[in-house]
């Protein structure tokens, strides 16, 4: 069995008037250490797939197995804990906690895990240095640029030592320089630390960097390309 296995995944949104078949039968698996992009036109189901994979949403049919755990069988609170300890999230809109500094945002997730202070301090510094923000530890998000905020978000996603990172359009709000910078950092983390990244994107720069690109169309896999 692969590290992540998605079987016969379907998602139907029941809007008031009509049903939307966002995902129509997807089988997909990932190995540890992948650097993969899910691509496709707007509305093809990328976000839907990623949310279900991250245990944020429930599939209409099918199963998600992550490292031996059947995610959609978990209760709500178990699922939250599963996410805390296994998955790192990076969002398009950064979504840092505005009242906490860069350092505290990264530390926050380790607080939730109940890690000791010494470990938190060391890891926070290490991570923020790794994303090139060793000198902005005490800045609040509002004092950081979009690119810097997204790098804090990557550090936060890594803080819990997750098994993999899910990033939905992480570069959509960034200019090309910040995008380049962010991608380099993630690529380095992937190469050197063997951290698994799965992106949803329609950003060509991301697809170019990715080692595997899964093209979706209308809720189905069109092409699964490993470089």
């Amino acid at each position: 069995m692969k590290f992540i296995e998605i079987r016969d995944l379907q998602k139907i949104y029941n809007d008031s008037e009509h049903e939307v078949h966002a995902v129509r039968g997807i089988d997909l698996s990932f190995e540890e250490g992948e650097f993969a992009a899910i691509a496709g036109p707007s509305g093809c189901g990328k976000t839907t797939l990623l949310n279900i994979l991250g245990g944020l949403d429930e599939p209409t049919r099918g199963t998600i197995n992550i490292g031996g755990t059947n995610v959609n069988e978990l209760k709500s609170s178990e699922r939250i804990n599963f996410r805390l300890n296994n998955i790192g999230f990076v969002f398009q809109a950064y979504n840092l906690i505005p009242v906490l500094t860069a350092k505290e945002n990264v530390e926050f997730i380790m607080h939730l895990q109940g890690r000791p202070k010494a470990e938190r301090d060391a890891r926070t510094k290490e991570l923020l240095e790794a994303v090139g923000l060793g000198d902005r530890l005490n800045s609040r998000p509002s004092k950081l640029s979009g690119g810097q905020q997204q790098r804090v978000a990557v550090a936060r996603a890594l803080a819990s030592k997750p098994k993999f990172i899910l990033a939905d359009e992480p570069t959509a709000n960034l200019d090309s320089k910040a995008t380049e910078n962010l991608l380099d950092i993630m690529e380095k983390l992937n190469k050197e630390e063997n951290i698994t990244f799965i992106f949803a994107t329609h950003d060509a720069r991301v697809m170019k960097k990715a080692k595997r690109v899964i093209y979706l169309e209308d809720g189905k896999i069109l092409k699964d390309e490993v470089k």
Partner: protein
Amino acid sequence: MKEYFKLAWRNIWRNKRRTMITIASVFFALWLALIMRSIQVGSYSHMADGIVEAFTGSIQIHGDGYWEDRTLDKTFAQETSLMTKIESIENVKSVIPRLESFALASTGEQTKGIMVVGIDPERELELTHPDRKLIEGNYFEGSSDGVLVSSRLADFLGLKLNDTLTLLSSGYHGASAAGIYPVIGIIKMPNPELDRRIVYMTLPYAQELYGAYERLSSLVINVENSNLLDKTKKDISLVLDEEIYEIMDWKEMNPELVQQIQSDAAGGYIMLGMLYLIIGFGVLGTLIMMTTERRKEFGVMIAIGMQKKKLGLILTIEMLMMGAVGIIAGVIGSLPVIAYLVKTPIRFTGESAKMFEIYGFEPIMPAKLELSYFLAQSSVVLVIFILAIIYPVNSVMKLKEIKALRS
């Protein structure tokens, strides 16, 4: 836990204006409520003290059935042993014997039905202080055979100091009663009703006038602490033979006043209830706004692994901090105002003052500082605040992370 407080504390200062509005609402509601209660509690005890000190005392012992039918036949024997026994009861400050009855007063031209009160001059000084009400002449000295006449009665009868007053009545067991007494003082009773018809004399002379030797119509009991009135009354009743005596407290002797206080208090509570209702909904509104605005942020927190219960806890801490600041500020802020009103009571003039005079009170509304209403009102405000917290916190705890993230 420290982490949660930090987060809560910072969130409070995120939207300063709204935080201030929330704190100010709580502050204002409690501040107003406390001041209002201080005046109410103060006026009630002013009235109670007034009526107690003016005449009735806190508790009275009569012969059984006297209060219904105030005749000399319902008097009881004056026994020193009973008085000492009552005096030794806890919280009893003094026991004051009286013999009260009616008489016709005349000065030749004018005649009027009046009330004769035979008092123990020494003991009466501990409660009603007739000496302080003197506007002319002197108080009783030794076994004086003189009388003190209330000012309006003196005017009506055309009496002056050192004139003589003739009293006619029927005495104990139907004997006839008559006597002539020199006027040694004129007193001004605050209660105009009493001021029109009271004559004080010493107890032995009153007993002689009515032929009620060694008999009393009442023992007036003065207590140290009026909060313990009920217990003291019970303690006293234990030493009394209920076949012979009846015991009444000032509330039983002044039912109209008690009723008036109760209806005033009820009105006050209705006003407070309305105030709290308005403020409560106002606070609820701001708290709901505060949580709906941050839905997305909550969604992110839950997504990255924060349990909804923890989130609820942080929010509760955050909101309770605001409530607590408001409550503490309300308590502290009301203190100087109440202290001022204790020292400088609101004084009535004109029509509203007359009401007070009828009962013989000074026409003022003094405030009173008491722990009880501070505790009560702060708790009520806290409970209302907690009720206002429940809905927004609960709705956050029911948040679906996927929906919240999308908002």
